[in-house]
């Protein structure tokens, strides 16, 4: 039983190392923190630590990919963002097969505070042409998706994970990972909650609470944020008629925006975004931060009821 999402990443990469002899793991002095070092124990010659140098890290990996290697970059999500321009101008423009694993994303690095809490990365990576964005919900999702992404997906992918905190979310759901697809975890007809990452847990809890109140709720795991599952999103907009998005990320440019871009063009319905406005802060655990920033099931339930009421009111007029 793996109880940390970064441990899952390290384990998957070290297992893939025997199957893929072109797989290399590169990091920037965060080999221990990202668990990239787990790969180095088995394949020390295919593990490259470039020191605290994220810009070089990205272009170094780009060079490895151009020469025929299959690099996986492991670094803190926040500090990879300082290499946004390297990712855009070299990895993206040249469409290189570089997989970028950003760990410690969202509030997972609760103690370190706002300097380490990456809340803009989905927005930044999503805008880069050729770049795909994947956000697994828990360890099970990492085990499902990471091997497929490293083995079968050509081109750059940003893979966003947290640090340790990984409640069991998708263990009891049976689906195989497919690049570009979204997954309906719970079927409902009154409202859809679309989410990704660990806060998907709060969405599922909210759906249970809403059921008690007689609200039938769809819950979607939007593990693939880009490319996005347009067909599924449109069908959900048509069926549920109202959508709420929940993300451990700024509401600007993140999951809510990605969903809205599809919905507004395919089948516009009322939406609400639940996410973060601000930079984060230190706390003693992740849940304190979820409480502080309103990423909790109670807030989701309240927002759903408001959205439904809005709908009832507008029906009357």
């Amino acid at each position, binding site marked *: 039983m793996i109880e940390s999402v970064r441990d899952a990443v390290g384990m998957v990469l070290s297992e893939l190392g025997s199957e893929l002899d072109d797989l290399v793991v590169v990091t920037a002095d965060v080999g221990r923190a990202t668990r990239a070092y787990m790969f180095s124990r088995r394949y020390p010659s295919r593990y490259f630590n470039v020191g605290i140098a994220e810009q070089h890290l990205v272009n170094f990996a780009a060079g490895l990919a151009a020469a025929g*290697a299959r690099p996986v970059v492991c670094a803190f999500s926040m500090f990879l963002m300082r290499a946004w321009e390297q990712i855009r101008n070299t990895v993206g423009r*040249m469409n290189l097969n570089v997989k970028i694993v950003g760990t410690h994303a969202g509030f997972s690095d609760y103690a370190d505070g706002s300097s380490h809490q990456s809340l803009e990365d989905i927005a930044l990576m999503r805008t880069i042409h050729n770049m795909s964005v994947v956000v697994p919900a828990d360890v099970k999702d990492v085990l499902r998706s990471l091997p497929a992404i490293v083995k079968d997906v050509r081109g750059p992918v940003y893979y966003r994970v947290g640090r340790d905190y990984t409640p069991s979310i998708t263990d009891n759901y049976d689906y195989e990972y497919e690049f570009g697809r979204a997954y309906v975890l719970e079927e409902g007809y009154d409202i859809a909650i679309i989410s990704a990452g660990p806060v998907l847990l709060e969405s599922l809890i909210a759906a249970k609470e809403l059921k008690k109140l007689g609200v039938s709720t769809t819950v979607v795991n939007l593990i693939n944020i880009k490319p996005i599952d347009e067909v599924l999103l449109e069908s959900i907009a048509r069926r549920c008629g109202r959508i709420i998005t929940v993300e451990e990320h700024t509401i600007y440019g993140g999951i809510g925006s990605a969903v809205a871009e599809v919905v507004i063009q395919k089948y516009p319905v009322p939406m609400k975004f639940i996410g973060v406005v601000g930079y984060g802060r230190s706390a003693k655990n992740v849940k304190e931060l979820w409480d502080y920033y309103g990423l909790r099931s109670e807030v989701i339930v309240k927002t759903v009821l408001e959205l439904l009421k809005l709908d009832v009111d507008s029906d009357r007029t």
Partner: protein
Amino acid sequence: MGSTLSCIEILTVLITKYVRRGSDKLNRDWLILSKGHAAPALYTLLAEVGIIPKEELVKIQSINSILQGHPDISIPGVDMSTGSLGQGLSFAVGIATWIKFKGGYGRVYVVMGDGEQDEGEVWEAMTNAVHRGLDNLLVIIDVNDYQLDGRTAEVKPKHYMPLIWRVVGWEVFICDGHDVVSLINSIDNALGCRRPSVIFARTVRGRGLKPIEGTELQRVE
């Protein structure tokens, strides 16, 4: 145009004498024009050796031309899309590392500008290259004494750069970047080294075009 003319001999020597082309990524040489704004020099040489058609040269930067304002891998003979300064060396370190790991004989040549040395990523890359012992990596720095806002001595002095590269562990050579014999001697010496090598090629901005020679002017007005 000024920085194209300062590195024309450097690229001439590299492309006509040293860079071995081929499809095998590990057993051919790579040429990275990290100072991508000298693209016209690169395109001219690629046309001269028959990789791109000469008639394409005058179409540079036209909407339907293959020749972009800065090197792009969609152009035959271009190994890296550049234009954003400071990124070529890191990319080259990645290529050279994989070639060395796989036992290929390919070499990686990088042409940088002196102004480009201001970029922090150059430091990140040059220190890493030494740590990896990349004896298959050769950098030539076109020292034309100018950057976008004027003389390097005024914007940000760089006279100490050869010392810095040397102290970090690079094999350092200094040559006349407009003298083909001087360039060839330096490159031959560099290729015999067991460490990554850098050649500081002293050049004159706009060389050969008298109205702009040794000035910050981009073109003849």
